[in-house]
């Protein structure tokens, strides 16, 4: 069992969720409410990682993370280190690859909040922030939970993008999914089997927990 790979995988999935969910709430809400020219283009851009082969996405990220590319050089300027083959690099790659998994459920949830509920909240004296916290977020909570579950599970399983951007550096960028591949390459079938079973279990528990929790809302029944 490659414990350091498990640790990298869990850290990557955890940080991706923590950082992506607030961004997705903001983006999903904006896309759900706003009517502007080019909205379809924005949505297409966000959905792109769904259909793009991970290696293609990984290839472009690899290019843009290079020290001579704008993103890579900017990062090097503020942190002093590169992005390729680092944990920071695969984290950023993971944020981008998971964008549609996080944004779409949240956007759908916001689209289902009737517009006049917000207006009723304003007319009840709630500021826009209070309206978000007390009315909108409780109502879109199931969407946020499925976004988190999808993002977490998808990050655990991500292979192509991580391999392209991060390689397989032990304790830094080698995730469980990559470790399994390495084990198979080394004809260590038992090691691969153990890790596969673990990944299966973790994914199943995460999804089960989230779907179980989001179904327990008394007011939504009937």
């Amino acid at each position, binding site marked *: 069992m490659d414990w350091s790979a498990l640790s990298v995988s869990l850290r990557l999935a955890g940080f991706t969720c923590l950082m992506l969910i607030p961004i997705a709430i903001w983006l999903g809400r904006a896309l759900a409410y706003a009517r502007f020219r080019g909205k379809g283009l924005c949505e297409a851009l966000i959905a792109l990682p769904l259909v793009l082969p991970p290696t293609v996405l990984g290839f472009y990220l690899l290019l843009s993370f290079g020290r001579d590319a704008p993103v890579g050089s900017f990062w090097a300027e503020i942190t002093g280190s590169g992005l390729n083959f680092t944990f920071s690099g695969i984290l950023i790659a993971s944020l981008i690859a998971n964008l549609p998994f996080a944004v779409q459920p949240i956007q759908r949830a916001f689209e289902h909040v*009737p517009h*006049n*509920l917000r*207006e*009723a*909240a*304003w*007319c*009840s*004296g*709630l*500021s826009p922030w209070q309206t978000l916290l*007390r*009315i909108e977020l*409780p*109502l879109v909570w199931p969407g946020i939970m499925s976004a988190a579950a999808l993002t977490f599970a998808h990050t655990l399983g991500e292979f192509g993008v991580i391999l392209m951007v991060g390689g397989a550096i032990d304790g830094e960028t080698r995730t469980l999914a990559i470790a399994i591949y390495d084990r198979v390459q080394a004809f260590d079938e038992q090691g691969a089997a153990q890790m596969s079973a673990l990944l299966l279990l973790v994914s199943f528990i995460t999804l089960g927990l989230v779907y179980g929790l989001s179904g327990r*809302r*008394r*007011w*939504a*029944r*009937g």
Partner: protein
Amino acid sequence: MGCLGAGGGRVVDSLMGLAPGRASGLGVAVNQTGPIPLDAKFTCQPGELLALVGPSGSGKTTLLRTIAGLYRPQSGQVVCAGDVWFDAERKHSLSPQNRQVGIVFQDYALFPHLTALENIQLPLRHLPQPQRRDQAEHWLAKVRLQGLGKRYPNALSGGQQQRVALARALARDPKVLLLDEPFSAVDQVTRRRLQRELALLRQQIEIPIVLVTHDLEEATALADQICVLHNGVSLQQAAPETLFRRPASPLIARLLDRHNLFEGVVVDVKGQLRLQWGETHLEVAEGLINLSQGETVAWYLPPSDIVLHRRDRPSYGERENPLAATVEELVVLGGITSVSLRVNHGDMLRFDIATHAARRNQLTRGAVVNVSLLAKGIHLLPGHQVRADAHDKRK
């Protein structure tokens, strides 16, 4: 109050002027060309219920949203309780949070994840928690929902949801109460009961109430004042009785589902001005004197001022403008029968009588009956034309 026509310009002062010494009322004047064309002006005094009526798309809801601060027209003013809430010219607009309005939305817009009590508590957040609860309970009792505070909206009936919405609107201690078709989503029986309760509740609150409705009966039953809207333009604001007897134009009469719109010519009969309608010379109580002979003028007669002569004995007003007409159509609607009479020259008179009275007078299709058109009811509409396609003539 007369015809409220093209508004716009600076009207805050005139709005305040409409309520001398009682600056606590509501005054609204808005004007814009698009995207929703609006040209409306109306006022509502504290304790008064103003109904905004008009067909769908006439801008009723937009005006309500303007009062609440949920919609900002290009130009206009909203004043309430002596405060200027909106003044486009000075680029001044209070947010909905700062306007202190109570609003009941058409679909109630209850927060589905909060119980009835929590819904009512939401506007009370300025109070400490125990007091908040007491207040919410108080309002719950006021709308007769004691004991249902712990229910979520989806476990309440339509009528109960409407009451929670009303309690939530009133809990804010609003300066104006806005009701957007609050009775349209419930069944007839519930609607009657809720209307009755609103009429009772009204007596306890001294704020302007604005009701948006397309139901004329509802407006007549509940409102002190009715403002008629058409394509975003406020045509006339008046008490229901005045409005139904003295609509300011044929269009208003038609929007109010009034029939009996005709055209006549002013003539001199033996030194007295009369209105010639077909072969009949009608005596008119007021207004003829201002018109010149030979002028064609539109006129309207409220159905209540058409008197059907009884066959067996004289009727009240029998000698006033008597004429013979043929029964063209009889429509029995329960206790009421709608009667259409064709007068010799082709125009149709329409009025309702009790079904038993129709039977007693042996009204049948094709029968010739005598009616009187009461002189004081004849309402002249100089300067207006009865459109050629008026449905009175088609039928």
